């Protein structure tokens, strides 16, 4: 450690801002070197003088003044015209500088994103619309019901209309299927049933 290096580090040494090794080296140098010691004493004196300066007091009204100023500004902010607010916001936006390369790149990416999103949604919706056909039966109108009395003659009922089973079926894609009006059930051939034998086990 030479005197030149020491003179640069004296201030930090005085403030205790040197590392352990440097601090020790400087301390040892100062014991041996009276010139550096003088420098050190001078700096220490300045530090002490500054630390001993009187605290300047302010007038009592200062905090009230500050708070009043803040309230005024709040009031102005709350009562400013919307146009002024928009201008302010625009100015703030202007102050955010985006480099042109980044801007172009990000706009390009955004457009690509929109394009792909659109096509994906189209792909996912189209087939399902083609494949699903719903059927619905138009219910018979109320006039088709006939009113009558039941066998006891005490209750009124609505008879089942003739078209109940044969109401028109509609497809969701508007292909009309003609209603089936006549349903004939072909009789199933009777299978003769063997009577159960009373003898167990049955004879082979």
């Amino acid at each position, binding site marked *: 450690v030479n005197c030149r290096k020491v003179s640069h580090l*004296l*201030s930090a040494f005085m403030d205790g801002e040197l590392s352990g090794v440097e601090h020790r080296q400087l301390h040892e140098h100062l014991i041996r070197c009276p010139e550096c010691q003088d420098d050190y004493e001078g700096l220490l004196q*300045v530090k002490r003088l500054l*630390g001993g*300066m009187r605290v300047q007091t302010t007038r009592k009204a200062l905090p009230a003044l500050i708070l009043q*100023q803040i309230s005024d500004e*709040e009031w102005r902010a709350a009562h400013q015209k919307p146009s002024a607010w928009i201008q302010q916001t625009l100015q*703030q936006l202007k102050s955010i500088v985006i480099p042109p390369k980044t801007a172009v790149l990000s706009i390009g990416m955004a457009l690509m994103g929109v394009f792909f999103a659109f096509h994906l949604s189209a792909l996912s919706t189209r087939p399902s619309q083609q494949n699903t056909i719903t059927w619905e039966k138009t219910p018979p109108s109320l006039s088709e019901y006939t009113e009558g009395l039941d066998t006891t003659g005490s209750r009124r009922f609505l008879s089942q209309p003739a078209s109940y089973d044969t109401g028109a079926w509609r497809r969701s894609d508007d292909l009309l299927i003609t209603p089936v009006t006549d349903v004939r059930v072909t009789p199933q051939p009777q299978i003769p049933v063997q009577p159960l034998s009373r003898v167990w086990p049955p004879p082979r």
Partner: protein
Amino acid sequence: MDFARLFTGVLRNDRKDFDALVNRCHRQAYNIAYRLTGNHADAEDLTQETFLRAYRFFDRYNRDMPFENWLYRIMSRVFIDELRKRPKYKTQSLDQPLNSGDSGDSDVMLELPDFEANPEQMVLSESLDEYLQNALHALPEEFRVAVILADIEGLSYEEIAETMNCSLGTVRSRLHRGRKLLRQKVAAVQRCAV
């Protein structure tokens, strides 16, 4: 921004906190402002402007940091910005009479205050204080801020670096050079006093 914030409850809570902080910190802030500017009027302006800006950006204040340190950061920025905005001092020859432009000859000469004129008075603490203040005022503003924060406010190098938005090495060199300049002036007074 303020317009939008008004309608949320945030502003009202912030305002309460901030009022308490103004009451707590204004004396300390004023003292530093006085040491930076060197007179009461400017110190008051600087303190007010600092608190006003602090309030505007209060939502950005990181609560882990001591409020005073954050306030000094704003103050040093306001101080240096304001100083740069002001018109530069005109250069004037010391030997030329004043107002030589309009009337041709005038025997009013430029007078400069001589701080070392009455060394006896320097021993009185008030004039020493004034002398130190003038010596501080003669420092470049970056050195002045660093020295005041370190020696009057007692901040660490790390805190000063954070406050002045510079590296530790820069703080070290600013402090050292500032103190050296101050030391030369103090030594000059002492030589006169002896």
